[in-house]
């Protein structure tokens, strides 16, 4: 079975139910909506320092929704037994699941890109006088890079879905990790922040926000002394995602379906 065939199969599967459409629409809408609120709420000096990086603040909202969608793309197949029907049709499990990962990740990437551009545009529409035009490479990266972060995050979500196989368990694990563990670990005295710098979503965020500052306070949106620069961070993030995917694929291949 050719790669194109498998991609087509997974595309049909994904789009022949309604929930992915809802996830995509909600992800884009909520992210843009939040940015619109933020833009409207800014006052005083902050408006003078309202730069493109700050328009992407809300990318995490859409990201969480797309990660949930990516998890569900895997776990609902286990839930309804369609994974078995799939493995009967395509016994080479790894290639089929890779095709699924590609379709889901690309979709998440597109959604991330749409959300990011939408956020930037709406901010400009609401605050035409703020310095929101794209000037530096960092400005371009923080807007157009969001799709890449969505794409890689979706790979992680698929991997977690393959490992855990149950919707509730996989979603809880993923949200607990990305929302709780990666943020709260800094509470641990001495080593907390050193560990935090190496956690995947923190590093992925650094790809977008490295070297940025915005608002009057000079906020940066990332930690000081991160181990990698922006592109190094992206590579590290991608490597972690692919490693998790390799584990998920290995499990799916060796476990009983």
């Amino acid at each position, binding site marked *: 079975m050719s790669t194109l065939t498998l991609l087509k199969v997974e595309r049909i599967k994904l789009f022949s139910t309604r929930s992915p459409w809802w996830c995509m629409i909600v992800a884009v809408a909520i992210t843009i909506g939040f940015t619109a609120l933020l833009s409207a709420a800014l006052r005083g000096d902050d408006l003078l320092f309202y730069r493109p990086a700050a328009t992407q603040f809300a990318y995490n909202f859409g990201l969480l929704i797309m990660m949930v969608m990516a998890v569900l793309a895997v776990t609902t197949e286990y839930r*309804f*037994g*369609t994974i078995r029907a799939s*493995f009967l049709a395509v*016994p080479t499990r790894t290639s089929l699941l890779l095709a699924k990962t590609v379709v889901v990740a690309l979709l998440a990437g597109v959604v991330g890109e749409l959300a990011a551009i939408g956020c930037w545009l709406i901010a400009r529409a609401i605050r035409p006088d703020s310095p929101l035009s794209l000037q530096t490479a960092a400005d371009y990266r923080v807007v157009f890079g969001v799709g890449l972060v969505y794409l890689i995050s979706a790979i992680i979500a698929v991997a977690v879905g393959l490992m855990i196989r149950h919707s509730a368990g996989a979603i809880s694990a993923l949200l607990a990790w990305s929302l709780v563990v990666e943020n709260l670990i800094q509470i641990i005295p001495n080593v907390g922040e050193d560990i935090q710098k190496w956690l995947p979503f923190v590093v992925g965020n650094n790809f977008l926000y490295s070297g940025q500052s915005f608002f009057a306070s000079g906020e940066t949106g990332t930690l000081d002394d991160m181990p990698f620069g922006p592109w190094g961070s992206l590579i590290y993030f991608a490597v972690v995602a692919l490693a998790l995917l390799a584990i998920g694929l290995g499990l799916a291949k060796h476990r009983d379906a």
Partner: protein
Amino acid sequence: MIQARGLTKRYGRTLAVNDLSFDVQPGRVTGFLGPNGAGKSTTMRMILGLDRPTAGDVRIDGKRYADLKDPLRHVGALLDAKWVHPNRSARSHLRWLAVSNGLPEKRIDEVLELVGLTKEADRRAGGFSLGMSQRLGIAGALLGDPGVLLFDEPVNGLDPEGILWIRQFMHRLAAQGRTVFVSSHLLSEMALTAQDLVVIGRGRLIAQTSTTEFIEAASGSTVRVRGPELARLREVLVAGGLRVEDAPATENEPAALVVHGASTDTVGELAGRAGLILYELTAQRGSLEQAFLQMTGHDVEYRSAGLPDLPGTGVPGQSSGTAPGAAVGAGAAAVGWTKGESA
């Protein structure tokens, strides 16, 4: 043709399938019979490469399932009618299956027509009745026009009409020369559906044989015989080495004799040589389900009472009885189960 050799599956401490070997021939419906929990579904999942055997090997036309190119063109399976996304339409479900194996999209309409789901094709599968789900499952199995078909308890939960439809469908598929392997825990159903049987209990092979032979062997052959001189008839038969019981008159039937372990031929011949007149000479079958329980070793009491009549009792175990038609009567005693003994 399906060939299983030494197939074994262990889930933790449960030995679900234990050293199972059998062949399934093309052109016939082969029943896969065993009580609940005997390991039928597990075996089918191993045949289809979904579960990994702990030991042993199973091949379809000489190949492992995973090595089949476009497997839906070789093997069609319906293990569970619910393996469909409830929010996907029947057509979309068949569509991704067809695309995956390079089947033309017009084939989707053909199989929908074949199972009578044309009108429901665009409805979501989650709203289907069990019978409709089953039909959709069969449509999926037939999509690639495969030579080998597997069905796991296809009539479970269906109404009589649905059962009849599936039964006739299986017969048609086998008549077209396909290999049809269908599981059930009901011997009475298999007696009507299958020509051959692979019988298992607690994961082990009990018999591989034709259905008629299995039923004869399992239910024991009893002959009812009646004539004007019952007492003399009885003497003649006992002298001929047969075990004879009296069957006293009932409201419906006059008094007769019941002969165990003999055919009507033997009884008729003995009576004829003695010059005795016979009014009735009929072969009788025990209840199929009772026979089945007896063979699968569940009903211990019935077994100890009834087993001596079984031809071949005590033949050394046929646990690997792979020759078709060879293993009848290797029954429960030979395999050695008693209630409470763990496999």
